[in-house]
């Protein structure tokens, strides 16, 4: 595998030097000697930046801009979930900011330090020198608004995921058949099915060891409050704020949430939910499915559909996506979706002496050849063009996990600002995933997401000061209620009073003002 990659790398240089592709001379940013720029790149998914990635080689050849790796703390990972940006802090503390900085979780970082001068504002540069970026942002103004800092300026070009669907409800359809049940369409039916899983021994081992509902991340249990018209998060980040008709709210302070928690506590008590949901951790899905114990979950399309390979070991195993059950009021909601803008991407360092060439370089990745390069790798090496579509070479798909293969040639790097093409993923999604996506597409269950706000300094202070405590308190009570430690109905008034006392109102206030400023609501 490794050797294979090496040969492709060598081949890359050969192919590109004898390229017979369409004329790409207009992609050139500088004439004569190549322009040398420094880059820092970190991402949770691929620990190091490599100048000799075939995709980087190709980009060099086309643009005549050479990126030189000066990454500080490479191999250190920024933490996707907690938002830790230790590596970026380290880079900043070292005193030198490279010409280009690309990272996961870069948004809050550049929005904090950009206005202080650490990064260049991009609006004017885009306006004047980056026609492709300008076109994209003009078409989708909400994106420019979402990534702007409190001073109204953009400081990074984001990685823009394509495709809408992230997670879905999954259920052991073979168990349903065995017990003579239909796919549940409402929360009541869902409850009955889960209870049947618990009590009617669908795995047939004579023990009531089935785990009807399980999740790799315990907040996916809280997600179920949507079945009682509650909400668990406004975005693809857990426990996030949400927007309700232009007003910022927190889902954990809503009536539906209370109702949902009350019922989930009942489910938990009845054993319909994995008793160890809070501690089982990331191996829950792998363990419970391969042990023939897990009944239903809420998880990603692509990776979860892959478990149908277990049918080789477990007779009849079939784990299929189902439409979100209708809530008590009859609404079907899939709360999770792929966020259209990630906080990942790249920015221009404040000391960059070639801002115009750099923004042109960023712009290159939004051209058609650039976008294809970012999504599929190098033509002739990783993919071929068929009917105007980029189709991966079969041997490339066969190399192993496609995402990993792409990282290893320098494509789909999310520390790079680019616009993803969902076409890249469809080519290797399995039939169960595609079937599920089709189901969700037909139902149109997705809801709008809260894309985040950029605080000014005073707002940031209020947020920092109160939000942590409020969130801790929310989660503490949430788990307590589920585990039967207190009764949500009885505690609710005290709970909302405590939230207010701990400053939820103040946090909502600054969020609202930032939101209004950013999305032009006033």
């Amino acid at each position, binding site marked *: 595998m490794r050797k294979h990659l090496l040969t492709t790398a060598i081949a890359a240089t050969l192919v590109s030097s004898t390229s017979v592709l369409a004329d790409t001379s207009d992609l050139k940013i500088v004439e004569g000697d190549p322009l040398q720029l420094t880059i820092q790149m970190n991402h949770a998914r691929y620990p190091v930046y490599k100048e000799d990635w075939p995709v980087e080689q190709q980009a060099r050849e086309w643009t005549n801009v050479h990126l030189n790796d000066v990454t500080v703390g490479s191999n250190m990972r920024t933490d996707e979930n907690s938002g830790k940006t230790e590596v970026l802090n380290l880079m900043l503390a070292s005193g030198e900011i490279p010409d280009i900085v690309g990272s996961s979780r870069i948004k809050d970082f550049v929005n904090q330090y950009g206005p202080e001068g650490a990064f260049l504002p991009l609006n004017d540069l885009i306006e004047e020198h980056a026609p492709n970026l300008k076109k994209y942002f003009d078409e989708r103004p909400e994106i420019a608004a979402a990534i702007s800092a409190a001073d109204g300026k953009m400081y990074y070009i984001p990685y823009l995921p394509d495709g809408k669907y992230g997670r879905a409800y999954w259920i052991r359809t073979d168990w349903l058949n065995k017990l003579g049940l239909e796919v549940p369409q409402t929360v009541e039916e869902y409850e009955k099915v889960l209870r049947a899983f618990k009590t009617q021994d669908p795995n047939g081992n004579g023990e009531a060891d089935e785990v009807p509902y399980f999740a790799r991340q315990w907040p996916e249990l809280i997600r179920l409050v949507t079945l009682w018209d509650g909400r668990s998060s406004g975005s693809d980040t857990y426990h996030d704020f949400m927007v309700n008709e232009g007003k910022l709210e927190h889902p954990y302070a809503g009536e539906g949430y209370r109702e949902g928690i009350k019922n989930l506590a009942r489910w938990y008590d009845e054993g319909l939910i994995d008793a160890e949901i809070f*501690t089982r951790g990331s191996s829950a899905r792998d363990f419970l499915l391969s042990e023939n114990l897990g009944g239903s979950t809420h998880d990603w399309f692509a990776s979860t559909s892959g478990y149908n390979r277990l049918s080789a070991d477990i007779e009849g195993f079939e784990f299929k996506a189902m439409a979100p059950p209708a809530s008590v009021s009859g609404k079907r909601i899939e709360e999770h979706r792929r966020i259209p803008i990630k906080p990942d991407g790249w920015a221009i360092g404040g000391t960059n002496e070639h801002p115009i060439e750099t923004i042109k370089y960023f712009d290159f990745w939004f051209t058609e050849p650039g976008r294809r390069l970012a999504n599929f790798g190098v033509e002739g090496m990783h993919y071929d063009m068929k009917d105007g579509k980029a189709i991966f070479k079969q041997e490339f798909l066969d190399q192993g996990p496609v995402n990993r293969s792409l990282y290893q040639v320098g494509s789909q790097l999310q520390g790079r600002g680019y616009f993803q093409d969902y076409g890249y993923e469809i080519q290797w999604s399995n039939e169960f995933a595609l079937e599920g996506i089709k189901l969700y597409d037909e139902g149109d269950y997705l809801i709008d997401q809260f894309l985040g706000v950029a605080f000014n300094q005073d707002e940031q202070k209020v947020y920092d000061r109160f939000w942590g405590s409020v969130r*801790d308190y929310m989660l*503490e009570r949430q*788990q307590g209620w589920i585990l039967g430690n207190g009764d949500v109905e009885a505690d609710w008034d005290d709970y909302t009073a405590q939230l207010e006392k701990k400053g939820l109102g103040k946090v909502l206030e600054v969020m609202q003002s930032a939101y209004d400023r950013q999305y032009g609501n006033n």
Partner: protein
Amino acid sequence: MQPESRINRIIHHLQREWQIYVMLLPTIIWFIVFLYKPMYGLQIAFKDYSIFRGVAKSPWIGLEHFEYLFSNDQFIRAVWNTIKISALNLLFGFPAPIILALMFNEVLHATYKKTAQTIVYLPHFISSVIIAGIVITAFSPSVGIVNTVLEWFGIDSIYFLTKPEWFRPIFVGTGIWQEAGFGSIVFLAAIAGVSPSLYESAVVDGANRWQMMWKITIPSILPTIIIMLIIRIGNIMEVSFELIILLYQPATYETADVVNTFVYRQGLQNGQYDFAAAAGLFNALVAFVLVMVANTLSRRYSRTSLW
């Protein structure tokens, strides 16, 4: 002439003893680089710190961070939790290695002793992540050994790791399991340093093993015990927070959230170093006062002290 001759004396001294100073150098450098230089950065506890602006250029804000800390009841709770966990640790975790060392000292069979020692040392070398995994599995309600045993006695299984009242016993117990063996090494070394003739003399005087342990071994290693205790008290605010992070849940914050985890959640995750520094400074102050008190008391009443 006087100052010159002093300089000459120093030069002469250095010429003669320079090897000693060269040996001292790494320690001095280590202290300067890792302890004294960072002290400069402590001032960010009183500043609105931005990494980009740097320590010097960030504006002073006085005690704002501290005011926030003490107005936050979760912080106050974390301080109490820290003290409670540390006190339990001190109460049960501190004597454990001493008892273990005394027990090892009474084991006469060499192979058996070596094997037993190796077994109890081992957990020390396991990383916190794996320890946490072991604990989570052991206390799991479905497959955990603890609940399995409970079920033999007809007791319903308990989801220990989500019960606030169980967190401290589990955490302190884990700490003892992990560190008691390794911690016993220093006491075993102290016991090994007790002159055999003290025991022989006691044998001739007619003391039995129990009397020898109480009247000779324990008093002889008492200075070591006291020094270790003072050091331990100095670390009272430093609860091993990796393990807590790995074991706690929002459901158990009530008893599990300590100052370090609070700072980690509230401060470091959002890059609020100034705030974290303020909490750290508070921790250090408490620890400093405790060490001073412990040391003074010990010097007065047992003639043993760190300095």
